């Protein structure tokens, strides 16, 4: 079983990202579950969402405390959040929305999702919508689900031009995500 934890802020589509990932896995005939921690959400507040992927039915319903992957949707959380790296194992990986190189204790992958979203015009109320962009990077790093399944899930979730742009964003991120190597 793979356990993924998403970190972002209210209004960035963190919950939608974990839902979409679970739906895409469903389309690839995998078992999956996705849920957020609901609080008194407001735009800007720290949000966590979880996704589990397995080839057998998933029984656990509690939050992900020992993630295999941590997805950082908002780069500022790397600086201010105490929650992002909790419970990580030595084998865990980080996929972060970040414009430069990140030096962390774990295998780390970065993608400048803000730039991709902005360039494609995926902007809502002044915020670049990076949630789906991050999924493109994550799917590349994990190897599952297929890019096709993710694009189908996007088509089911969104409509028209938004669906089109998100599908394109996923492809760009899939190609551009890169691993950051720790310099010895």
């Amino acid at each position, binding site marked *: 079983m793979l356990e993924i934890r998403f970190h972002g802020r209210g209004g960035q589509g963190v919950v939608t990202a974990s839902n979409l990932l*679970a739906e895409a896995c*469903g389309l690839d005939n995998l*078992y999956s*579950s996705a849920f957020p921690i609901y609080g008194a959400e407001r735009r800007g507040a720290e949000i966590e969402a979880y996704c589990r992927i397995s080839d057998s039915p998933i029984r656990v319903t509690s*939050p992900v405390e020992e993630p295999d992957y941590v997805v950082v949707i908002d780069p500022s959380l790397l600086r201010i959040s105490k929650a992002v790296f909790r419970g990580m194992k030595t084998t865990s990986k980080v996929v972060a929305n970040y414009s430069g190189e990140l030096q962390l204790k774990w295998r780390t992958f970065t993608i400048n999702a803000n730039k991709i979203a902005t360039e494609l015009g995926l902007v809502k109320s002044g915020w670049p919508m990076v949630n789906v962009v991050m999924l493109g990077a994550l799917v590349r790093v994990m190897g599952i689900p297929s890019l096709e399944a993710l694009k189908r899930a996007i088509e089911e979730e969104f409509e028209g031009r938004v669906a089109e742009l998100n599908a394109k964003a996923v492809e760009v991120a899939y190609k551009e995500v890169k691993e950051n190597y720790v310099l010895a």
Partner: protein
Amino acid sequence: MMRKVISGNQAVALAVKLANVGVTGIYPITPQTTIIEELAEMRARGEISTEIVRVESEHSAMAATLGAALAGIRAFTATASQGLLYMHEMVWWTAGSRTPVVMVVGTRAVGPPWNIWNEHTDFTSERDSGWIMAFASNPQEALDLTLQAFRISEDERVFLPMMVGMDGFILSHTKTNVLVPGGEEVEEFLPPRRQPYVVDPEEPLGMGNLFPPIEYMKLRNSIDLALRNSEDAIREIGRDYVRKVNPMGDYSSLNVKYKLDDADYAVVLMGAWAGDAMEAIDKLREEGVKIGMLRIRYLRPWSEREIRNALDGKKAVLVLDRSTSFGRGGPLYVEVKSTVADVVPSVKGVVSGIGGVAVNKVDLYNLFKKFVSGIREDVIWYYPEGVEKVELRTPRDIE
């Protein structure tokens, strides 16, 4: 049958659609709201013809739902927490009227203080109302039980309303794989609505008029008998559901055993945390601890026979309550203890997961380990790891 990734609330809305519900009286409350939102959207898209009656309170939501049901229409509503408490009077009227109605409760803590997260106290506090009360442990079961609820409620041995509980957020908002039956399968399983009497202006009758004491007592006695007799109906309908609708399900018994038959130690609980408990049990089994689980799926009827048979001869039983019965631990603890006190030497109670406190497989593993090595107190309040000690402070102490 179609496999979809949907939330517990979406699964319930699909069950309501498949059951061809005629009327639903609705009032929003977290975490149940997306059930009725989903129904409203289905109606807007023309997928269902259910009459959606928007009212000004949960009391009225149940009144509208009961009114439709009395008139002979299949009726549904959903609520939670304060909503269920506000509805309390009509919950009893519905059971007393012996009218088939189905309600889903997305369980949530009760205020004050405000808390929107999961616990079962709202649900368990209706246990003496005369409803059939089932509790799901995943979104699939929420769908399956909601569909079965219509048939159980409308069975001539029962003729009582049925409530299906599911953990708020943990099930209501978790998207996961659910097998969604097709209309034809459901049609074969669910016969047209039956009910003991219909309120019809052409043939007037009075429901709930003043009844003299002895007649009143006979009516209450009848509810008790119907609830006891519902056990057989539930098993029979469950088996038929597996045959006709969901062959992957197991509904041949009211409650569900896990690695229990050869176990020395048993854990009893209800709801979603059964998933994490199974993981904890697997780990303890690997370490050679003979422990198993009984998951209560039906709080009412309380199957004394099933529960006694399942727990008879165990060295010790631990009952986990995600709800409170102040001064007595939790309602499940009280029920289990009264059922098996003479066949199990030690029955202990644990209250945990209150107000949305997350209790995961590691916490449960630690708790079960503690239980196997012996807990002295009859009832403990268990705080998961990371919460060291409760500081009970009055506002005066806060500087």
